[in-house]
């Protein structure tokens, strides 16, 4: 693209936007709303999935040992556990330690739980962390089969629910984002189609005079990209202001910590801006070849 052509393309694009200013305003504001909702759902997804990730990574398997297992038996169990695939860490928790922990959790340091209970009722146990928390249910089944293990506990039900909730949140936001993007593309395509229609006589003449197809297309692409970027820019400004002021007031919502890393947010805003431009390109691409076939 030569400089003087670029000047011409930009001038034509601006003229076209100005000529259809009502439609241009309508398109930009709809894109703003679309990208705003897109950005909000991404932020919500980002926050929930960060939260869910942190919950998921906390999922542990507690394997309780038979009360009458001797030291050698415990060692056997540990070796068998270590031979299983997909385990990140194994921590042995003795029954004494378990009682101490419980006492601490209950928060009554001076209250002697053991003497109250007569004897320590807790078994020895292993705390097991899976490499991938999604493997936990399967691992639990395998661990339960090891000789010497009396019971396995991993918050069965809750874990599965957590995973399926996380999956649903992701699927629903993806579908939502997809539909919004389609809407934005449709709007840009319509705007460009109308802009091309308004200039069909001009385009026919350009073709007969000997313009190349790309010379004719460029102004429309610039118009589409311009509308898309302008819309996304406005939505980013709104989103950044709103989320920024939310962050300055609270840092958690319903116990959920808010994502506040500057890098994460800048990447999000840049992506939204790029998304606006890409929507502009796709929307223009859909309509661009109308009236070009002369």
């Amino acid at each position, binding site marked *: 693209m*030569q400089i*003087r*052509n670029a000047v*011409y393309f930009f001038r034509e694009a601006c003229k076209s936007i100005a000529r259809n200013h009502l439609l241009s305003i309508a398109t930009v504001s709809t894109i703003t709303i679309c990208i705003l909702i897109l950005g909000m759902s991404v932020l919500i997804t980002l926050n929930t999935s960060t939260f869910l990730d942190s919950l998921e990574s906390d999922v542990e398997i507690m394997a309780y040992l038979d009360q009458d297992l001797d030291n050698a038996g415990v060692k056997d169990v540990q070796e068998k556990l270590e031979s299983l695939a997909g385990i990140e860490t194994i921590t042995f928790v003795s029954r004494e330690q378990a009682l101490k922990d419980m006492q601490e959790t209950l928060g009554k340091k001076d209250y002697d739980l053991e003497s109250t209970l007569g004897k320590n009722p807790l078994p020895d146990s292993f705390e097991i962390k899976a490499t991938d928390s999604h493997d936990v249910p399967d691992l639990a089944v395998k661990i339960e089969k090891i000789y010497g293990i009396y019971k396995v506990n991993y918050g069965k039900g809750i874990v599965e629910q957590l995973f399926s909730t996380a999956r649903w949140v992701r699927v629903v936001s993806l579908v939502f984002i997809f539909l919004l993007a389609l809407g934005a593309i449709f709007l840009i395509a319509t705007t460009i189609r109308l802009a091309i229609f308004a200039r069909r*006589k*001009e385009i*026919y*003449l*350009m*073709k*007969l*005079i*000997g*313009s*190349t197809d790309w*010379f*004719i297309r460029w102004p429309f692409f610039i118009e589409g990209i311009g509308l898309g970027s302008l819309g996304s820019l406005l939505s980013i400004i709104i989103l950044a202001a709103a989320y920024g002021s939310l962050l300055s007031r609270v840092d958690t919502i319903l116990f959920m910590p808010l994502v506040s890393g500057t890098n994460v947010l800048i990447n999000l805003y840049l992506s939204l801006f790029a998304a606006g431009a890409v929507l502009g390109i796709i929307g223009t691409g859909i309509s661009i070849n109308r009236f070009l076939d*002369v």
Partner: protein
Amino acid sequence: MLVQFYNVSKIYANGVKALDDISIKIDGGEFVFLMGPSGAGKSTMIKMLYREEIPSRGQIFVASRSLVRMKKKEIPALRRNIGVVFQDFKLLENKTVYENVSFAMEVVGANHREIKSRVIEVIKMVGLHGKEKSLPGELSGGEQQRVGIARALTNRPLLLIADEPTGNLDMNTAQEIMELLFDINRKGTTVIMATHAWELVKAARKRVITLESGKIDSDINPGEFTLCK
């Protein structure tokens, strides 16, 4: 040899046979009338010259290049050597005379200085000096056609083709436009003009190719005129 038609036939998608086995040759520098009643196939021949239509059979060469074998991306280069003038002028109503003419240079990527000097030159050439800032709606039919001719001339085409350029004009204005076209031809541009106005053709004493239902009826050179009609 600037233009050659070899056994060209055209059958449109709806089955209408617009041209039937046409063969002609036109030299550089000639002025040629394509004459015939409405529906004879004049516009079809004209459109083939700038490759808006392609023959169903036969070959067409312009400046030794086959328009049938021409690739899509070679079309712009062909069209930059051909200026087209229309019966309905096809001016852009919201652009001034100057802009309508400069448009033709802008859209092929000419630079500003070139455009300015050339546009003023052709506007003078067609006799519209002083009307640069007028809109087409403020001009008479004859003046609008002059703008159309100026636009066709800006890129210095080898070939100027005009499809019934006087069809919307009264007789006197038509004569003035004819004079302009002869003038352009005298300066070296080949001109092909389709028309059904025998009065204009008769007075001109130029080569006349007559079409009748898609076939060539006669091809008469100046000088042979007195013999016919």
